[in-house]
């Protein structure tokens, strides 16, 4: 990737001794992302980190936006972007590498992540592990990254909330996951439908069999109507279902990556267009968009 911004970019994040809890959480995010795509964009700003997957054909049109506050994860965070008015860094990396590096850091005393550029830009993750000897063990992982030049940053803007027809809380993810996993064996596509009475159905249909799982009393999030049009279906029939047929694998991947139950999990359905999942944990918010199959 171009060297345009390399000279000015340096990044240093350090997790101190009392961070093991934080590390687990960070590992949790990476765990989710690993399941979703082979490469991912990491955007760093002064206060936040963003993991972005843009809807390339390779992803099957699905896209993801995940943001977290650096203060919740790092004891020390220094960053210097390309220029003062563009104080950000965009990196492309392979989530599996970062996941492997952090996996071994579960019992670490300290972890330090630095963006370096020896022979090619790398995220150097250095982990200090406890050992029986007087010196700690040090493991370093050099993860090659690609630096995204500023002219391409527009490709990775935050997606806007779609004008949805129905918004509904998801059922317990563990249940949903096991249902979807079994359905995946039968069909490549799944229909998600839901209404404003807290009802959701997951349906698959093939030549031989059709299976529907019904969820009730899920609840619908009350979106505050800023200008009246996003309100929870003003004038919309409460029983009427909005549906979208999506690639079941994408849904399964999203659910498979969830280890911990989110504080809030909901989805917005735009009838026959797109399903927008929002998963909120204490310090992390994850949005995942799966387009409907035509």
């Amino acid at each position, binding site marked *: 990737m171009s060297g345009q911004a390399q000279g000015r970019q340096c990044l240093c994040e350090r997790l101190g001794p009392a961070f093991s809890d934080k590390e687990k959480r960070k590992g949790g995010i990476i765990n989710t992302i690993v399941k979703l795509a082979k490469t991912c964009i990491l955007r760093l700003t002064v206060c936040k980190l963003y993991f972005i997957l843009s809807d390339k054909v390779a992803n099957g049109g699905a896209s993801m936006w995940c943001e977290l506050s650096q203060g919740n994860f790092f004891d020390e965070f220094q960053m210097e972007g390309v220029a003062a008015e563009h104080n950000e860094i965009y990196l492309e990396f392979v989530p599996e590498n970062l996941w492997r590096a952090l996996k071994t850091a579960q019992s670490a005393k300290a972890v330090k992540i630095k963006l370096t550029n020896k022979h090619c830009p790398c995220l*150097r993750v250095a982990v*200090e592990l406890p050992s029986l*000897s007087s010196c700690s063990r040090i*493991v370093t992982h050099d993860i090659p990254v690609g630096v995204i030049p500023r002219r391409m940053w527009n490709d990775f803007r935050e997606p806007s909330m779609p004008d949805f027809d129905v918004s509904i809380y998801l059922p317990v993810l563990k249940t949903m996951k096991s249902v979807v996993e079994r359905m995946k064996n039968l069909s490549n596509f799944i229909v998600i439908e839901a209404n404003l009475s807290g009802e959701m159905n997951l349906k698959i249909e093939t030549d031989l069999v059709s299976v529907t799982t019904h969820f009730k009393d899920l609840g619908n999030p009350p979106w505050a109507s800023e200008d009246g049009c996003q309100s929870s279906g003003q004038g919309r029939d409460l029983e009427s279902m909005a549906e979208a047929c999506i690639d079941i694998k994408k849904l399964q991947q999203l659910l498979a990556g969830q280890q911990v139950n989110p504080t809030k999990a909901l989805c917005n359905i735009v009838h026959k267009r797109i399903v927008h999942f929002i998963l909120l944990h204490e310090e992390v918010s994850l949005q995942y968009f799966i387009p409907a199959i035509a």
Partner: protein
Amino acid sequence: MKCVIAGGNVKVLGRAVHSLSRIGDELYLEPTESGLSLRAVNSSRSAFAAFLFAPLFFQLYEPGSAGPDTELFRCKVHMKSFLGVFRSLPSLEKSVGKCLILLKPRASRLVLQLHCKHGVTKTHNLAFQECERLQAVFDTQRCVSRLCAPARLLAEAVVHFPPTLAEVTLGTGTSGRISLRNYVEDDAEPSKTMVTELWLAEDEFQSVAVAPGSHITFCLKEFRGLLSFAEASNLPLTIHFDKPGRPVIFTLDDTVLEVHLVLATLSDLDSSSQCPSTNGVSHLPAPPDDFGDDLESYMAAMETSEGCSEGPPSPTFPLRTPQPAKSKPQQQEEEEEEEEEEEEEGAVPGTPPHKKFRSLFFGSVMTPGRPGPATTQEVLAEDSDGES
């Protein structure tokens, strides 16, 4: 040959077989006066393992009688068949009380009999082939460097590397630290390959007697098999190594058991390199001597020590292409050299051509004072079959 293994030793034998199964497809059984030896070699002759169980290991050990003209009977069996008998280690532990191994020269089958709980006896009759002695030539005394560590330390070190990793480089830093790094092939794309390096302090080892600044690259997969055996038996592991290209020898020692694993190492012809990292791609220089505990100072040291960079840092890498190992500078045994060339020329499908691993020398070993085998004197017949 007849031997009986009882109690917990059955599981030890099972684990040994599992370990050997990571090496090769055939298990060689060689009963000797000093015990029963189980051996295996891999198809490219770059890994050899031998487990020697002393007579004390057995409840009953009868190697058979060797007459003045005959040797003790040797044979080899399919690894899969032998492993099948010991496949489930937990069930071996739970239900098997005794294991009998019976090998009669004129019999057509090797008999493995497991005496289990509730009066159940499982008898396995395995087909076998007579064979020459399988022996790699190596000498731990000639190795310059030696490390001894509890198996647990090495197991904990190896966990940082992905299970699919093929080769790993073991290096000795100037400050006495020992490093392990994943080996990146020359033709791998450097901007796509993740490099992991682990540094261990000298005092984590039981003994360290190494030449500083040395390094060897060997196959991790074959080593893992021995490592899990060592961990389970709680035995310290000794690593003997020398220059790149010379085999690395891992040994485990016990009163009733002696294990050797010999692996070929990658020969690296630029032996004049100052820094331990000679993969040619990513250069993580050894931390300076005053490398403290502190992660900060380590990172700072990484930043400042540029001494080993190969050239201007540019996106295209100055690649080092080691020449083929044919022109080895030092050759002690002529035979070895010939064997090398033979092996290289004969290196066909099984041996990836770009790997410069040197094959170990295999030949029939003449024990002094005994007449040599009546049959062929040169390399095992199986070799030529395997390579044609």
